[in-house]
């Protein structure tokens, strides 16, 4: 059963009680919170996610608990993971962004049996495009726009490389849009569901775009890398594609990973596998349509010889 099939008050009741367990491959996450507004937002953004039994084992147990405000500004919320509170409290109105960021943080700390790239990943016709980039470079916006054109979204945040198969594993979650990209995506995909805009968070204004039902439904299907695109958004500038040699790609990719040093030699081998099977470039773009065309052209080149 998907979360969207449950009534909103049922979702709120589960979250306030035993917890709402969601299958978000490769993990199951149970979230508990008495916050009705958070329950409504989770219900909308994770509508296509599978709901696990209340008694199911969860890899991650999260509580989003209201706490007494310690600063001016009213009630606050605390992200609690396995009884620990790794972050300062947020204003209660920012509970959803905190939940999303907290989940990302937990995920990066628990996936050291994989190489974790800071990258968006999309796939079409069995060929995945890895877009490594740091925050603000446009990878979430680009991956969201590609998803709205029919690509499958694996993640807008994590390139998860299996050290056993060297394939990319999905972690399909709402796409985090920040600042100007919120308006860009509302205009680009008016039919897509984008939740409320949270203004003035620690990362600026933030909103979340619901992943496509197809992306969620295929959340356990790994994909083969075909292209590595280092994204660099430059407002108003023309598109520019700078091909990268494999050794350069290797070093840039290794430098992008969250846990390259932690994983050690298997990480070296994973980066090598991705590099050898992918074409690679730096893509500077100012318009989404130009970036889409550049990626189509890149994929048409086929895999590296």
């Amino acid at each position: 059963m998907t979360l969207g099939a449950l009534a909103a008050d049922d979702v709120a009741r589960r979250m306030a009680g035993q917890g709402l367990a969601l299958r978000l491959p490769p993990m199951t996450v149970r979230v508990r919170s008495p916050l009705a507004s958070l329950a409504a937002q989770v219900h909308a953004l994770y509508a296509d996610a599978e709901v696990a039994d209340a008694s199911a084992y969860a890899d991650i147990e999260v509580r989003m608990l209201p706490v007494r405000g310690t600063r001016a500004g009213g009630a606050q919320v605390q992200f609690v993971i396995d009884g620990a509170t790794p972050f300062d409290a947020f204003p209660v109105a920012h509970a959803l962004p905190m939940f999303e960021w907290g989940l990302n943080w937990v995920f990066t700390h628990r996936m050291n049996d994989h190489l974790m790239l800071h990258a968006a990943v999309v796939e079409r016709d069995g060929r995945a495009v890895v877009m490594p980039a740091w925050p603000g470079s446009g990878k979430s916006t680009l991956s969201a726009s590609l998803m709205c054109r029919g690509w499958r979204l694996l993640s807008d945040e994590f390139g998860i490389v299996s050290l056993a198969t060297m394939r990319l594993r999905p972690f399909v979650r709402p796409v985090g849009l920040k600042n100007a990209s919120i308006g860009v995506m509302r205009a680009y995909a008016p039919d897509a569901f984008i939740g409320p805009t949270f203004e003035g968070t620690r990362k600026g204004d933030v909103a979340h775009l619901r992943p496509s039902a197809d992306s969620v439904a295929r959340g356990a299907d790994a994909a083969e890398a075909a292209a590595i695109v280092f994204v660099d958004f430059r407002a108003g500038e023309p598109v520019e594609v700078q091909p990268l040699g494999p050794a350069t790609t290797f070093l840039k990719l290794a430098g992008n990973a969250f846990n390259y040093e932690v994983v050690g030699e298997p990480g070296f081998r994973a980066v090598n596998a991705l590099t050898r099977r992918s074409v690679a470039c730096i893509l500077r773009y100012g318009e989404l349509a130009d970036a889409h065309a550049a990626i189509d052209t890149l994929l048409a080149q086929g895999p590296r010889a």
Partner: protein
Amino acid sequence: MTDGSDDEATGAESALRWRIPAGQRLVFEDFDDGIVMFDALVGSTHLVSVTAAETLAIIEATPGLTAGAIYRELLDRIEATEAALPFASIRELLWQLENLNLVAAAAA
């Protein structure tokens, strides 16, 4: 004919024997635009030149060579002339590699 290696090295330095440090393991991946090397002891990755990669390969294959012997083997392997690759540059390279703990020098 001399390659000048013995003349240019100081007496003490020319007697040093070069090895890969105990516990060290180097993994190389050769690409069109460079060679990437993984230092398994530290977990770091380096972009290395052909000269550096071949020097490391020589030391790994034959531990205990002097700098002069490494130099002669290297010239042979990469088919370089002494003019193109002076001995002084290899001495400098060896100490750079030693700084990274990729090789170690010891008196015979």
